[in-house]
């Protein structure tokens, strides 16, 4: 067995491009999935049966599916229904957003539910409007519960972006797998891929622990 680690250095620009796309996918997905999650949570908690049931169906459906299947499904089915071809990147983004929005919705719902009804009533009794009570009392308290969960979801999402490599989105995993099959430097490239993911993911995992500790709610 001869190893040639120079391939890793030679591929540094391609790998960096891939890592950049991984980060972009993570950030953009989250930017979509936070507002989407809030909308879904508010729908779920609304008095309208139609809104709350449709939100529940969406959330439960996408929470209970393997992400890889959602990726394939978006890849094959979306173009047929929409009648237009999407780029691999957009397709991957849609699949990730469907998945993460569902998770975020549950996070926000739990956050809102965690605030005792008395808090809203107390705020209204002080003369606040319902909107003000929500903005000034409910949301700041719920935030403490929501943020740690969002942070864990963020790390999961970061890792899950590797799955859109199966539809040839040029993120880190795809780039590394491509170079692997072109150069046959399998061990070197796969190890490099693992190390790069580790370098990016490890600080994030630690940050999540820190946030969780800081915001831990003592009952």
């Amino acid at each position: 067995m001869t190893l040639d680690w120079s391939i890793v250095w030679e591929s540094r620009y391609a790998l960096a491009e891939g890592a950049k796309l991984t980060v972009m996918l993570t950030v953009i997905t989250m930017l979509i999935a936070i507002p989407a999650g809030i909308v879904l949570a508010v729908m779920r908690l609304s008095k309208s049966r139609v809104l709350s049931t449709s939100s529940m169906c969406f959330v439960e459906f996408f929470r209970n599916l393997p992400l890889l299947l959602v990726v394939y499904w978006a890849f094959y089915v979306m173009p047929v229904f929409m009648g237009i071809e999407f780029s691999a990147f957009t397709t991957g983004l849609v699949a990730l957003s469907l998945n993460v929005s569902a998770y975020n919705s549950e996070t926000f719902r739990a956050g809102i539910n965690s605030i005792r009804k008395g808090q809203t009533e107390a705020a209204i009794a002080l003369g606040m409007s319902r909107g003000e009570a929500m903005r000034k009392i409910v949301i700041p308290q719920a935030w403490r519960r929501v943020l740690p969960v969002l942070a864990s979801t963020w790390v999961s999402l970061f890792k899950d972006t590797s799955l859109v490599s199966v539809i040839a989105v040029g993120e880190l995993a795809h780039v590394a797998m491509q170079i692997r099959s072109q150069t046959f430097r399998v061990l070197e490239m796969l190890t490099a891929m693992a190390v790069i993911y580790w370098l990016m993911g490890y600080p994030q995992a630690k940050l999540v622990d820190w946030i969780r500790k800081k915001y831990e709610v003592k009952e």
Partner: protein
Amino acid sequence: MELDFSPLLDSWGYLLGGLGITVLLAVLTVLCSIVLGMALSIGRIYGSAWLRIPIVFYIDTQRAIPVFVVLVWIYFAVPILTGWNFHPFWAALVALTLNASAYAAEIVRAGIESIRPGQVRAGLALGMSRAQIVRQVLLPQALVRMLPSFGSLLTHTIKDTAIAAVIAVPELMKRAETVVGQSYRPIEVFTTIMFVYFIILYPGSRLIERLYQRVAHLGRS
């Protein structure tokens, strides 16, 4: 657009076999990770620094790296290093277990640490040793408390098994791809498979919750 579900009808036995492999892989993974996770967490809580530091490093590493990466590394890189070749199923079992055991370790740790110190004191006051207390007092209660978390570990793992399709483990996801490749009916096949996964996973989580409600009192000290 016309839908044609006949490829599914033609290969339902093949797909059902795939579902069997999915469930088998997930259940084996969870069982192995519970055992490994228990060992890791006990080492982490009661071990010396020499044991604790590498365990924490291992757990955090598994939390930082995608399962996909672990999976392809085990399947493609390990044979180059060692000369062993294994069936994709075993590679998937090893990779998924390596990953899930880190989560299982965190679940077990949280479970043990959630039991109030008075229980340890009661064991000590009877003259029990630390090891006896862990085995006879803490773990049995913690296991009950962990049941819901192990339930979500199982559903999470069932979802992760789909990734094993990448290394051609003939589980449900892979077989669905194969059927799509032969029939070119991706919409019908993938949509149906989606519902199959949903039908397994959704009631699965409810069932575990129900079971937990029945035994919860055994863990409530």
